[in-house]
């Protein structure tokens, strides 16, 4: 799955790439203006004999020319940069559609209007300008989805914004782009762009409380979830009501990945994660609870039922 700046999937990213391309032409021109003379000099002016060459010490006119031209080029880039900045980063005059909060080392994703909360996976409707509010709960993080738009810091105590309009359905990878401690490398996330109808049904499902399991291992898991300390950090709406310190688990089974893109969301991986989070993602905030095999089985069953 391509992450790159060179595969824009939004008008914002397209604008940024366009500016990059223009800049590359300018830089290429300057690099050529430097490299070609050097290559010529290296061949043409090799030392032959002991005679000293003419001691030319300067040429004011030439120096003025080669000052004015770069000045004009950077002036040109500056004007273009203003144009692109305004296209990408236009004025914010309403409440955000999504609020993303960076934590060490996961992303809290909230849809205020729908009252939905999830983690590490952001869904957006295709073809709509979405305003994303970016916050941080602890240290400075950075929200970056190269194919969809600019990066912007997540700063505690402050709300930043980024506009994104995904043009095509698909998954777009993002990453934290401000070093934020031990597991900065695995504070990744993804943006899932869906056709509006699919997005609406996803959002409705996410806003709904969890369906409490009726029977079997999942039901046992629900009991153990409350008895072990899981509920102290994690919220499952409909089962408990708790200020959360860790990712909301209400619909964890609907997500594609676990632990901020660290693992694919399969029952095997989930069980492994519960068994030894500190081995898979050393120094993460989730402790090794030394769960028994039985607990692991029922907890996994519970979580897998939370679609």
């Amino acid at each position, binding site marked *: *799955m391509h*992450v*790159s*700046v*060179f595969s824009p999937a939004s008008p914002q*990213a397209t604008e*940024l790439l366009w*500016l990059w391309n223009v*800049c590359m032409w300018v830089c290429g021109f*300057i*690099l050529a203006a*430097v490299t070609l*003379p*050097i290559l010529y000099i*290296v061949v043409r*002016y090799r*030392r*032959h004999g002991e*005679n*000293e*060459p003419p*001691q*030319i*010490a*300067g040429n*004011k006119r*030439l*120096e003025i020319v080669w*000052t004015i031209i*770069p000045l004009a080029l950077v002036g040109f*880039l*500056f004007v*273009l940069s203003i144009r692109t*900045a305004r296209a990408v*980063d236009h004025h914010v005059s309403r409440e955000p559609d999504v609020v993303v909060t960076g934590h060490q080392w996961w992303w809290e994703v909230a849809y205020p209007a729908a009252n939905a909360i999830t983690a590490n996976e952001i869904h957006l409707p295709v073809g709509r300008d979405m305003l994303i509010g970016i916050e941080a709960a*602890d*240290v*400075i993080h*950075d929200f*970056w989805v190269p194919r969809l738009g*600019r*990066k*912007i*810091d997540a*700063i*505690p105590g*402050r709300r930043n*914004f980024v506009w994104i309009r995904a043009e095509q359905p698909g998954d777009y990878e993002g990453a934290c*782009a*401000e*070093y*934020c*401690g*031990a597991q*900065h*490398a695995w504070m*990744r996330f993804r943006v899932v762009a869906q056709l509006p109808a699919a997005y609406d049904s996803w959002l409705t499902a996410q806003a709904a409380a969890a369906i409490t399991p009726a029977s079997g291992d999942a039901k046992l898991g629900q009991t153990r979830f409350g008895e072990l300390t899981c509920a102290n950090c994690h919220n499952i709406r409909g089962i408990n009501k708790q200020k959360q310190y860790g990712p909301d688990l209400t619909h964890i089974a609907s997500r594609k990945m676990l632990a901020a*893109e660290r693992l694919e969301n399969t029952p095997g991986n989930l069980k492994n994660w519960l068994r030894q989070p500190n081995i898979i993602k*050393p*120094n993460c905030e989730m402790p090794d609870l030394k769960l028994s095999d039985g607990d692991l089985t029922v907890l996994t069953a519970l979580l897998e039922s939370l679609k």
Partner: protein
Amino acid sequence: MSDVPITPGLLDADFPAPSESRWLEWVATVDHKRIGILYLVTTLFFFCLGGIEALLIRVQLAWPGNSFLSPEMYNQIFTMHGTTMVFLVVVPLLLGLANYLTPLMIGASDMALPRLNAFSFWVFLFGGVLLYFSFVSGHAPSAGWFSYAPLSEKGFSTRYGLDYWALALLGIGVGTIATAINLIVTIVNLRTEGLTIRRLPLFVWMVFVNSFLIIFALPALNASLVMLLIDRQLNAHFFTQLGGGSPILWQHYFWSFGHPEVYIMVLPAFGIISEVIPVFSRKPIFGYGFVAASTVAIALLSIGVWAHHMFAVGLGHAWDYAFGASSLLIAVPTGVKVFNWIATMWGGSIRFTTSMLFAIAFLFTFTIGGLSGVTFATVPIDWQVTDSYYVVAHMHYVLFGGTLFGVMAGIYYWFPKMSGRLLSERWGAVHFWLMFIGFHLTFFIQHFLGLDGMPRRVYTYPDHPGWAMMNLTSTIGAFVIGISVLVLLTNIVVSLRGGEPAGDNPWNAWTLEWATTSPPPEHNFDAVPPVHGPRPLWDLAHPQGERA
């Protein structure tokens, strides 16, 4: 060369007085030449430490999901790599060269304040030891070389690594400021008769301007560091949002130091290039006035660009446009110098010594680094590529491909003066090509990694198409660089013992340091030649001919 008397080399038992203990001499010295060499040897040592840290990083990143280093250890290593290279290698290396050369190039017998000079070195060394002691204390700093708050605060960095970091940098900062004071006073006061400011060798001029930049920038760092220490140790809230403080203030304060610092790290290298290229092109520098004036322009502008490190913070378009403009502007005086250096070579008679090879490589490589800098100054592009491997590529292109290549040119150029012996040109060429190829192999590909979405400061990465191959290539390049450094070190050690005697002026150069023996006597000059222009020795050799 055969009838040139062999002047005493650095390791000869007779030089200087055989009566005292050699170790005590070196520890107690206040002679700028000795102190300069102490700086050079010490920074070379720290360069090896920083280089090993780089190799460790590259081994860990050689393929995705590697577990060669734990995340915790990796984060300490990359922090120490950056801190070491910036504070313990590049700046003291340049100041060490400045220390050795400045009195010689202005016809003085020492720096104006020799004991302050010695103090500067020892407090720098103490800072370096303190920084590395943090490993022994159990945890080196791991918040990156610029320690953003609140990650750097007690709540998120509970171990003592950051306190060692702050204290070490305070010590090093004091030493740096002291050296800058010394250089300014020396250059103002101790120039020989006839050496007006407008006739200063460009290396000395750049060192002079650089020293003023240090006087502005390092105190800003010291203020930031004491505030961080007061936060950490006295529980204040300068930079923690929870107590009403502002993490962004740290960024403003740090980069008010940090940006001038990168120019502090490059201006003396520009000075080296401005000495080397004319001599090996057999022509004077093209446009002395322009080159000197552009240096002042860079220094002044560098104080007004700091927030270009903060374009992703969301300060608002006013900030972004203002600092984008100033950052684009500063590219101009930096860039035109490259044209001046090329014009110096044009029509010249080029001698491809190792020193000149590095100088030419500098022109090409630094230009690439400068141009990637221009892309950052074009603000919206920064919004994509900052904090990715693209910026890692940029900084190494300007600091390694720029400053360090310039330093290499300076080492091959001035080693004969310092030691009385020439470095092997044959092994120099091997060093050059290995380092040049290794450098571009390591860092060019990192531009693409960044553009492809790989953030910086990550201990591993997902197995995206191409990422493993690009990272492995970069790692291989790093080891090629490592081998080239071994070649250099071997060259230095072997040449010190048995290299070809250099004589006073092996390069037929024109500035005053070449008008004395190699190495110079303790008082530097038996007689300083008359100075009537920027190239005193040229004028002496061409009394009726073209004035420089």
